[in-house]
């Protein structure tokens, strides 16, 4: 049974899904579209920083997508199949990438929607989508006024919340950090709830995650780490108070801009280059969201330069596959969120193909000194990516792993490493530095590339 317009209409969970899919039919949203036999696959640049990878089988109409949607098939899978039905020629024959093979075994077969009483139509979805796109000047003006009012309300609420945060910090110091560390979860949760009420959402999440960051450290290091964390909170609060309209501070305290806002921002720094995917970090947060961070390394920069693609999605959406494979390289233009130390970015455009293998930029002999410079710019940062020079991974007497450079610089690692990592000569390694620990992302070794935590 091949794909047809009517079979897509039948498998769509509802008309809304088709309408959403119609908004994804522009080829510019698809850096990759290809086919292999009856399989069609592609990558869709959706609203997140990471693209969604989609596979569909035109024979049995099963599909799989990395997006967090609970609908099945999701709008991305529907759009992929829709584009295929309308223009097969846009899907050149290609060898299936590894991620297609990995998902083949886990795909779900399509089924006709149980909501058969609902009439679903591709044409109606496309018309509805086009109608929605028409500009309405008066509605836009109303929207702008509401938005300005909301921004002013938010600023007042955040001001009060930030004042409360500083009082809370002073209280923890006055009553003792020993007690603070003993009741870490409870105390952080309380102030986080106050910050949520005060519309300081990002700051609240940071407080919510503070216990897990501190408790991941050995006990003897927690006091110093708590002092550092509290100090960063104070710095951030005072910086925001001084410049509440600063986009970076607004992001760190209130909320981050959407992908569309960053792409539309003419002042956002942009870098077109070849990027290597160093690795991903997927973590479930206390607020019920799952953060999905993909770290990239600029392979054309003369000095180490990184980018972070960061998305959040509800934990209830289930386990999600990573969008990129570690070690994958691609050519893309990235727009960075305005920042004193630009890190977080979104993909503006991407070209298919990895091109020739490239070397990593030269690491500084003392990357921690560079880190200190960056912390002077943005002292509230909790994690900074570093490129480490030649070295080895070693172990102390308690079998805790450490990275040590050939020059003798050393730093403890946050996670245990594989046996192999202890026997490899590290030519260069990319890691996240928290101020107390290194979390290794990837390394180039005498045995080739080595990923950590993939």
């Amino acid at each position: 049974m091949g794909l047809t317009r009517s079979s897509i209409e039948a498998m769509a969970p509802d008309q809304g899904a088709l309408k959403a899919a119609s908004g994804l039919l522009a080829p510019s949203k698809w850096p990759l579209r290809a086919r292999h036999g009856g399989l069609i696959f592609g990558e869709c640049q959706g609203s997140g920083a990471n693209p969604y990878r989609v596979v569909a089988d035109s024979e049995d109409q099963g599909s799989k997508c990395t997006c967090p949607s609970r609908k099945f098939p999701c709008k991305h899978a529907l759009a992929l199949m829709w584009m295929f039905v309308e223009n097969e020629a846009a899907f050149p024959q290609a060898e299936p990438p590894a991620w297609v093979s990995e998902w083949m075994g886990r795909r779900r077969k399509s089924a006709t929607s149980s909501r058969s009483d609902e009439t679903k139509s591709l044409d109606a979805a496309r018309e509805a989508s086009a109608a929605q796109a028409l500009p309405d000047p008066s509605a836009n003006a109303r929207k702008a006024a509401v938005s300005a009012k909301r921004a002013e309300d938010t600023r007042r609420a955040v001001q009060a919340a930030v004042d409360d945060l500083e009082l809370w910090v002073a209280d923890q110091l006055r009553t003792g950090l020993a007690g603070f560390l003993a009741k870490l979860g409870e105390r952080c949760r309380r102030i986080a709830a106050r910050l949520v009420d005060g519309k300081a959402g990002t700051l609240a999440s940071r407080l919510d995650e503070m216990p897990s960051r501190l408790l991941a450290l050995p006990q003897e290091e927690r006091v110093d780490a708590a002092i550092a964390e509290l100090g960063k909170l104070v710095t951030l609060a005072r910086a925001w108070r001084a410049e509440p309209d600063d986009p970076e501070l607004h992001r760190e305290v209130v909320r981050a801009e959407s992908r569309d806002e960053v792409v539309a921002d003419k002042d956002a720094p942009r870098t077109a280059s070849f990027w290597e995917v160093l690795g991903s970090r997927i973590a479930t947060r206390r607020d019920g969201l799952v953060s999905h961070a993909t770290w990239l390394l600029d392979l054309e920069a003369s000095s180490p330069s990184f980018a972070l693609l960061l998305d959040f999605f509800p934990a209830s959406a289930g386990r999600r596959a990573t969008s990129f494979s570690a070690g994958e390289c691609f050519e893309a233009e990235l727009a960075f969120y305005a920042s004193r130390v630009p890190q977080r970015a979104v993909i503006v455009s991407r070209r298919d193909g990895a091109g020739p293998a490239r070397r990593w930029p030269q690491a500084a002999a003392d990357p921690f000194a560079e880190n200190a410079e960056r912390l002077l710019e943005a002292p509230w940062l909790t994690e900074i990516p570093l490129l480490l020079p030649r070295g080895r991974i070693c172990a102390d007497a308690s079998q805790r792993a450490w990275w040590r450079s050939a020059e003798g610089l050393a730093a403890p690692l946050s996670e245990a490493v594989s046996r192999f990592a202890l026997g490899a000569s590290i030519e260069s390694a990319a890691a996240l530095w928290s101020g107390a620990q290194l979390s290794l992302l990837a390394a180039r070794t005498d045995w080739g590339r080595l990923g950590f935590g993939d």
Partner: protein
Amino acid sequence: MTDLASSLAQMRGAWLTGGSAIEHCPDTWRSIVECEDEPALVALAGHAASVLFRPAPATPLAVRPLLPRLGLRVILETERARFRRVLAHKTGAVTGHAVTSFMAARGFAPHPADWLPSPGNDETAEVFTPWLDWVRGEPEAPPDLAMTLETYDSFPFASRCAALAARRRSDPDAARAIIAAKARTEPAERRNKLVAILETKLSVDDGEFLASLATDRSERVQELARTLLARLGRVSGEDALATELAAMMTLGKIGLLRRRSRVTMTPLKTSAQEARRRELLGRVSLKSLSDALGATDTQLLEASPVGKADVLGAFARMIAKTGSDAACERLLELVLEDKEFPLAEALALVRRRRTAQARAVAPRILQRDDRFFATTLAFVGPVGEVTLAALTASPSFSALLRAMETARGAEDAKRTEATRLVESGLDRLGVLASPEAASEIMARLAAMGLSAADPKLDMLQLNAALIPETRP
């Protein structure tokens, strides 16, 4: 810096128990921090500690030696993900050991980030011995060092066994002399492994040393020495058991025109008697049984064994354990000729010597294998060199194609089981087939509608990608 460190330590102490730390802060900070502004002070202190001080290990850092290189090519980066999927694939049809042995036979090693032998795994293919020594934390063997009595102690244990095994193949007497001189210095477990090396090229010259192990401290070593002696025909104290066992079977002639021998495992009345016979087959040697039956070893091995499958299996295991290499090969030949003999029960005969001879019989085993190549893999091992013609002529191949059709059918219950069988069969094919056969089989399966991206083909894909260096 020492002053700052001291100030920070005092401030830390003050905050730990609670209270103001302003009196402990450096003088230069007092002009920045307003009175009673503890939050500002914690911001300064936290930042100073982050950028001015580095963590230092409390104990010296230990660096492991670099992982040694093997005489194998590491698989390409593009194949690593497939290899990891193959290892993670839990059909149980092909073990990780079989996959790595298959790769080693082709001249490839996995990337060590994806696979390293586990320290307790003695089954690891010999070519991975340097890695086994490394994961065990033993020092690396000096390169190109010959195994002699003098250099014995310079080898880490896994490399020592590998070097001794190689020496045994080239110079059996020299290897025995080293083992005889050094085995007693090793703990029982290792002593057992050293003595087991004598299994290769076992000869009457080994008899004296093996007999001396009758008083070894380890019962396992004693038992191994007795087994090896039995293969040389040197047994004692089994007469009564052998007589009891001989009474449970008959050796005779059948056929009117073409007279041939047959040893019949007489049907017994009770399960207890059956169990006793199986037990005796595990305790009696070939030599003792032949004597008790009034025949020679050769006469007994020329007789086709007949009986229940489990008894035939016990009989084959007895021959494999206590018979010479020639005895094993003779019985295997008989079994392959005898279509009534349950092939799977004869597995012990090749386990001991999975050699070129075992591979040579692959086509004959394939002709009788209808278990999705399970029997062939068990007999032949993951050789990766079986031809397309031999594979497709097997009943297993037809069964596989039928199962593929069923797996695409509509009946859920049948589909699940058929899919499992297909996955297992394809995995086994992946370690048996030559690269050319693997490619051709995938092409045929693609023509039947199986996508090249289907993970069921991972092992075959890996096979086709690992071309031995000698091929174009």
